[in-house]
């Protein structure tokens, strides 16, 4: 753990050498905040020690204190990172324990789900740890485990997903990622972040040669299974569009699937507005079937997705104008 903050910096012998630098808010300040005395005092000492450009173990103490009260304080994080890295190189190396730093971050991340800075700092720490190649495998496993723990609380946390992608790419840790996504989608087939990660895993690591036909077939089957469970799940249909676009297959290759969920000749049996939307695009591309496209869009506007009636009518207008 970090050394706990002093009850009072002014009275603590390890801090009395510093002259605190109180905040000058000026006259007519905007967006003034009712700071606690504890925050004001810690900030005054932070400013004082920053002004000296000091990189000593006590910097870790005051920065941890500030971070606890304001984890979105941006300069404090870089100051802490520079101090850690500087201590690692110095005789005080023992004061900078990167494993302890990660545990500090774990605790903060769990309590401050929406914070950006924690994850930037984590990248810095993990990069520093990667300087020891023999430890990288274990570290990456543990990092994946921690992000998994975060996803159990919120499977759509943007910062955590961004970090996971960075981790996987940085350490070429692609193994097991598809199975990981399979697990998340089994728990919640509407988790769009998991679908997005799937796309990243399938297409993010390939070179110029692209993915093989068997992968494309498998992914189409994954979508088929997903929309069978939840026909109205936009995430799965969007993934299908993305997949087909990426590998250059025409949308018409899934016309049959769409008709299963949106039988145009039997509107009462339609169960997916997204399938209708896809059909509208498929038929709009065929001159002789534009009437079917218009019909799909009219069904969307009037019955299956009326909140977007203006949009569906706009689409129909474009097709009519082209005719």
């Amino acid at each position, binding site marked *: 753990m970090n050394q706990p903050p002093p009850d009072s910096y002014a009275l603590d012998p390890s801090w009395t050498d510093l002259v605190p630098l109180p905040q000058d808010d000026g006259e007519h300040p*905007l967006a003034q*905040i*009712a700071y606690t005395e504890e925050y004001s005092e810690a900030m005054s000492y932070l400013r004082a020690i920053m002004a000296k450009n000091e990189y000593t173990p006590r910097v870790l103490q005051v920065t941890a204190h500030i971070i606890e009260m304001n984890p979105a304080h941006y300069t404090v994080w870089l100051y802490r990172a520079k101090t850690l890295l500087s201590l690692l190189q110095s005789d005080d190396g023992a004061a900078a324990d990167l494993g302890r730093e990660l545990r500090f971050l774990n605790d903060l991340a769990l309590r401050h789900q929406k914070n950006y800075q924690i994850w930037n700092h984590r990248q810095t720490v993990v990069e520093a740890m990667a300087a020891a190649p023999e430890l990288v495998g274990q570290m990456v496993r543990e990092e994946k485990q921690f992000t998994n723990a975060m996803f159990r609380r919120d499977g759509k946390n943007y910062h955590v997903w*961004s970090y996971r992608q960075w981790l996987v790419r940085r350490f070429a840790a692609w193994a097991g990622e598809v199975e990981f996504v399979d697990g998340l989608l089994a728990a919640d087939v509407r988790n769009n972040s998991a679908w997005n990660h799937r796309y990243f895993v399938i297409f993010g690591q390939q070179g110029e040669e692209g993915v093989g036909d068997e992968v494309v077939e498998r992914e189409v089957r994954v979508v088929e299974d997903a929309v069978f469970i939840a026909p109205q799940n936009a995430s799965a249909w969007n993934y299908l569009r*993305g997949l087909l676009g990426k590998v250059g297959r025409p949308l018409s290759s899934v016309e049959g699937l769409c008709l299963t969920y949106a039988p145009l000749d039997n509107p009462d049996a339609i169960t997916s507005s997204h399938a209708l*939307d896809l059909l509208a695009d498929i038929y709009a591309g065929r001159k002789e079937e534009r009437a079917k496209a218009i019909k799909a869009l009219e069904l969307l506007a009037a019955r299956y997705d009326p*909140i977007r009636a*203006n949009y569906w009518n706009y689409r129909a207008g474009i097709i009519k104008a082209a005719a």
Partner: protein
Amino acid sequence: MSTPTPPALHKPKHTKYWLRCLKTCLPTDYTSTDLNRLTLAFFCVAALDLLGCLHTETTEEERNGWIDWLYKNQLPTGGFRGSPATDLGDRGSGSAWDPPNIPASSFALATLVSLGDDMGRVKKRELLELLPKMQRADGSFGEWFGGDGQIVGGNDMRFVYCAIAIRWILRGREGKGVVEGVQDIDVEGVVKFIRSAESYEHGISDKPFGEAHAGLTYCAIGALSLLGRLHPTSDGLSSHANILRWLTSRQVPSLPQDELTDEQFEKQATQGTEQEITAGSTITYGADGKPLWAGFNGRCNKKTDTCYSFWVCGSLDMMKKLHLIDFNGNRRFLLEKTQHFMGGFAKLPVPGTPPDILHSFMGLASLALMREEGLNRLDPTLCISMQAKERLVNMDWWKDAAVV
């Protein structure tokens, strides 16, 4: 039988809310935004400007005092700090720990314009010269400048938008402002970065392969608009048709279960009767067959949130396609589901959620884009009132002077 009250914007309450934010101390809870005080200041000033009472409910002396305060947070080397919290006074003069911050600089300029300042004291050249130093090789921008040439902070669209807004404001009409001898940013690099962050869903994300996100999409479209690269035939986006589908898909009908807290929802899902669960996910339709309430989410299959009513509507307005959304559904979502009885807007339609500065501004801004009666019109790109923008573009230095 009483007739239901028609939804209305409670203007006096909002005015009161914003005057309180502007003139009294914000609660301790705002400590986590301490380093973004110039951003908070922008929301307070711009909100009163939208309400049309910035110049009537505050005195000239107050406004001048706030202008001076903003300039006090301008660094001698150009650019603005995020908050007086990093001001190290004489001891830290030129310190890397009191850095210029890109969002703060952008919001400071917008606030000065809104307050009626002529921007005569803005270190325009220095700030413009800072921008290329803040740009990374991939075209993105950092959040702040960490001394020794270090570009710090995440590399997502928020900072791209802010950097481009600064550039647009300071360069003036067709670059007739302060450009002489100033090295420009890599514009093609910015466009390339935005294109690289367009996801397979065709919204914009934080980086290649990231998840499409409406806030980041707004920032990207705003940057393209200010760079003159948003036209349908331009190359800033894969296609307008693609992004329009994604943007319009963000509007979703309200469900009764949206008004539950996470704990209540969990309880209903696990212990509720089948009837309760069905009722919780039933859309209410009006006589016209359309859902009565429909706000916006920021990502596919996420819940509605007040701020996305602005991020999505602002994006569509810049693309001249705002008419494709359902105005009534959005308006009623904001006025009946997230407008707070004390003024301001809450983030979520969950009863008991307090209003906050960000969401209170975003709610007003979304209504202003839909031309709500009683609100000034909003420029969707700069996010300031049309009047404020008019003042800016009519300043001499902006129109035709090469000011040194």
